[in-house]
């Protein structure tokens, strides 16, 4: 791969992620706007959201001032190209931070100093996955407000009367939506992982957020759980930004991981309406040949 092309590609991928709301989410917000009562706070709020998203698309400036901490998944053949990709991601992050397309979002907790360029210990998070096929890079910029609303439950949980079954799972996810209220910038999108361990649960839950809103779960029982939780969450009347209304979540995406017999975790990655994620496929030279 050519270093300069790869740099341009990573710059374009991250810039697009920060500034252009994915089409499926835009459509869901437009649908939500039409479904809320005319003259009400929910519709007013969604109107401001749509206007702001349209502005950021035109100006190519950040959709939200909280441009998150970058998470990337790189699917590539396991050769030395992966080092080039990681370098290109770091370079793009530095440039985009300098230009104000990414906010300075990395603080060293031992010194309380902001590193100023979004590069720091274990930041950004770049995960490599060996893959036999075209190179794909997925990027997510998830804000801290919604990250704070993400949570993990260990079943059984008496306080929710949640047992170790899918009804217990349903109770946990709805509780997470209730606890978040408007603080995670509702209407949210929920990435969920049932099973796994305490670490893998969070990563796999977040990974579910890459699924587009119209994607149907291949497992019939999980597809049914996704539909049920989606409908029920919207009956909680929390509404856009927690000011009441019919739209509390835009989507629920549930994945599973094998669990240890002693452990039953339900991990909910709460993402805001401004869920920013894109996947680009790269040519052998390193330029973007397709958006996925």
């Amino acid at each position, binding site marked *: 791969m050519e270093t300069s092309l790869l740099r341009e590609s990573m710059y374009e991928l991250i810039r697009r992620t920060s500034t252009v709301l994915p089409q499926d989410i835009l459509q869901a917000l437009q649908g939500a706007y039409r479904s809320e009562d005319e*003259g009400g706070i929910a519709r007013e709020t969604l109107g401001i*959201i749509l206007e702001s998203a349209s502005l950021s698309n035109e100006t190519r*400036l950040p959709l939200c*001032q909280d441009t998150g901490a970058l998470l990337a998944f790189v699917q590539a053949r396991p050769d030395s190209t992966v080092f080039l990709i990681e370098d290109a991601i770091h370079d793009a992050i530095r440039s985009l931070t300098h230009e104000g397309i990414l906010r300075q979002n990395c603080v060293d907790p031992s010194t309380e100093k*902001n590193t100023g360029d979004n590069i720091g210990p274990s930041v950004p998070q770049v995960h490599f996955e060996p893959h036999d096929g075209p190179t794909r890079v997925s990027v997510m910029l998830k804000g801290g407000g919604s990250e704070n609303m993400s949570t993990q439950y260990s079943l059984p949980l008496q306080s929710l009367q949640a047992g170790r079954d899918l009804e217990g*799972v349903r109770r946990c996810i709805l509780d997470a939506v209730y606890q978040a209220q408007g*603080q995670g910038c509702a209407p949210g999108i929920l990435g969920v992982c049932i099973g796994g361990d305490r670490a893998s649960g969070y990563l796999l839950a977040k990974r579910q957020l890459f699924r587009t809103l119209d994607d149907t779960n291949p497992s*019939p029982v999980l597809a049914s759980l996704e539909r049920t939780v989606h409908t029920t969450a919207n*009956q909680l009347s929390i509404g856009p*930004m927690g000011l009441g209304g019919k739209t509390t979540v835009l989507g629920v995406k549930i994945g599973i991981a094998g669990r240890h017999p002693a452990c039953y975790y339900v991990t909910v990655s709460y993402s805001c309406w401004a869920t920013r994620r894109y996947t680009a496929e790269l040519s052998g030279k390193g330029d973007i040949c397709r958006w996925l």
Partner: protein
Amino acid sequence: MAVKHILSPLEPSVIATLNAGDMVSLTGRIATGRDRVHTYLASGGKPPVDLTGLVIYHCGPVVIKENDRWKIIAAGPTTSMREEPYEAQIIAGLHPGAIMGKGGMGEDTSKACATYGCVYLQVTGGAAQYLAQRITRVEGVYLAEFGQPEAMWILNVENLPALVTMDSKGRSLHSLIREESFKQLQAAYAHPFMKEGHD
């Protein structure tokens, strides 16, 4: 919905007329302050500007320097609840006119609003471009050592739309919605999930 035009710094007589549920359009001078500014002020740090009557905006903007002038790139609200442990003390000691952010605040802030005459204004989270367009000028920056998003930015805003969600009479739309959603949650728990075609 009728919109009330308000000026920052806010006069106590204006604060008294604002009710939870009122739409307002805000013009004037405001100060950003988020996590670091709140811990600093609550631990006795001297405010770099007089905050009396001012709007404290929970916001970590994206700002760049262009031709030696600060330029706001994006400036939506951050989650206010993180400042709940500090806000009541700041309201009591420094008498801001309003706290502005997203997601609302808790009981302690609500009580301080009622005791000292302050309101909470909610603006739309994530609407960073829409809100940045209503910022007309960057007056200056203080406490820059806290980092760019966490510094105190003194901004001028014009016709910035917000909703009064907590007023100086102790009313909070956030607690009303929380109570209502709790009822709905309990109702939802009464109908357990059935695996379609299995049970």
